[in-house]
């Protein structure tokens, strides 16, 4: 069985600073990592590998050249090999460009049974890539999966987590599955696994390797025009009340009465 896990390298969102004058985010020089949901997808692939015989896990990741380092985490968690896409030609792709790129990589990888992704990326969370990839590859798809089982006879059984209900579904392989944070708790790889990861094969593929033309991916092909991307304005009073508990609560109640928010 061959499982492909698609992963996105993102900046550490907790380290983003906002320029106070323009409200622009400062993204330069930030540490990078894999998104949270992608780690759930990878962990799920590795758990299947530990349960069933003859399972190979390939991690496919898109990001900046720093991915050469970041990918080691995926290999340490348990991917057998990796393909990384760091060519600047892929940069600035919209969801259509990213999905086209992933579809071409998957086709070049050949036979596979399952493609796993996160329900959305941790940074922009549009959730489009699994759906677009399913369309491009013409595969059955199950989204928002919080429980996954591989059945006999190349089938899967999955529990989809929707707003008001859990849907238990089954479909045949090959298929595309995107997972939620509840599907598992990703492991922290032990030191021995981290050392071993350095010896696992990593291929770097550019647009020419997968047969995508320049105009098909990247910022030039994007269908989204971002007019601005700024921190929201929050005008809060930031009145900090300190002192004896009785006093601060009295002050708070007076303030809330003035605001007219106490019934």
């Amino acid at each position, binding site marked *: 069985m061959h499982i492909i896990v698609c992963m996105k390298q993102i900046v550490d969102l907790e380290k983003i600073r906002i320029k106070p004058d323009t409200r622009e985010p400062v993204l330069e020089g930030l540490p990078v990592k894999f998104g949270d949901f992608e780690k759930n997808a990878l962990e799920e692939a590795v758990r299947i590998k530990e349960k069933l015989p003859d399972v190979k896990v390939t991690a496919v990741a898109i990001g900046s050249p720093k991915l050469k380092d970041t990918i080691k985490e995926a290999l340490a968690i348990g991917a057998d090999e990796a393909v990384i896409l760091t060519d600047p030609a892929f940069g600035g792709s919209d969801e259509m460009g990213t999905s086209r790129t992933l579809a071409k990589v998957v086709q070049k990888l050949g036979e596979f049974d399952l493609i796993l992704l996160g329900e959305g990326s941790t940074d922009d969370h549009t959730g489009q890539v699994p759906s677009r990839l399913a369309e491009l590859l013409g595969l059955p798809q199950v989204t928002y999966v919080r429980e996954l089982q591989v059945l006999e006879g190349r089938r899967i*059984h999955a529990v989809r987590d929707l707003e*008001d209900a859990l849907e238990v*579904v089954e479909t045949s392989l090959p298929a595309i599955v995107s997972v939620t944070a509840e599907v598992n708790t990703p492991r922290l790889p032990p030191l021995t696994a981290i050392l071993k990861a350095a010896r696992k094969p990593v291929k770097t593929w550019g647009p020419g390797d997968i047969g995508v033309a320049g105009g098909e991916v990247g910022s030039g092909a994007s269908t989204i025009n971002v007019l601005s991307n700024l921190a929201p304005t929050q005008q809060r009073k*930031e009145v*900090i009340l300190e002192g004896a*508990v009785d006093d601060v*609560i009295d002050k708070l109640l007076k*303030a809330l009465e003035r605001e007219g928010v106490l019934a």
Partner: protein
Amino acid sequence: MSGILVYSDRKSVALELLTFVASLKQPAAVALLSHEAAAWADDCFAYGAGRAYTSADPALADQQPDVLAEALAQIVKQAGADVILVGSTMRGREVAGRVAQKLDAGCTTDANGLRAENGQLVATRYALGGNTISTQVVKSAQQVIAVMPQTIQAAPTGGSGEVIEARLTLSPSPVKTVERRPKEAGSVNVETADVLICVGRGVSEQKDLAMVQALADTLGGVIGCTRPVSHDKHWLSENQMIGISGKMSSPRLYVGVGLSGQIQHTVGIMGSKVTVAINSDKNAPIFKMADYGIVGDLYQVVPKLTEKLKAR
């Protein structure tokens, strides 16, 4: 814009989107893609739809997103639509991505604002994990915009329309639903709460929630929480989680109790009228989001606050 088609698996959201189209003075069509939805036609006309496309195709019975997307793509063609507005529910978001790919169209999902400007539709959505708001225009010939529930205030315009049986050629989905387990609705609706008390990891034991509930009861409010409380500790229902991957709420009064105020949580309460934070760490980011902050031990502050509120 030559034609706008609206689709949502939730009636309230379909009516919200139709209200938006009516405000543009544009003709609207709506796709009603379930047996249940076919009965919404008259309401859709009252909210501005001129045409309602329905189908009794058995392939739609299971409401699988791949079949819904194929049906929608075929209706887009029949209706001559170049703008497809979808309700950004979970099923809707999946349908949006699929239909966009079928049309070779750009798509934005989870829009929390939508307006027309210079003949273009401008959508806003959270980006960078809630750190920023991205303002976007989809520039492909056809465009798909998935809009969050309650982004637009629905208002009837009156009017009538025509029900059209869509001519669809559909195959059943390769995905089969074998069971549907409705989630416990619970009595707590954090989205419409007037007063919302949110708890975080600062509450050390589940039994301590009773103390916070007493405060909520006194204020006539409900309890919400940050992700660890619902999804890791399972002390509260996942429907009570506030933030980017949970519910959004715009209460009159928000009180954050023992939570640090990570952006992933606070994006969910941006629309609050007045915010209060109670936290022992005076450097917690929640104080930047607070109109009034109390630096102190929640185990002292919360019971005392409840007591004094009762004595008012």
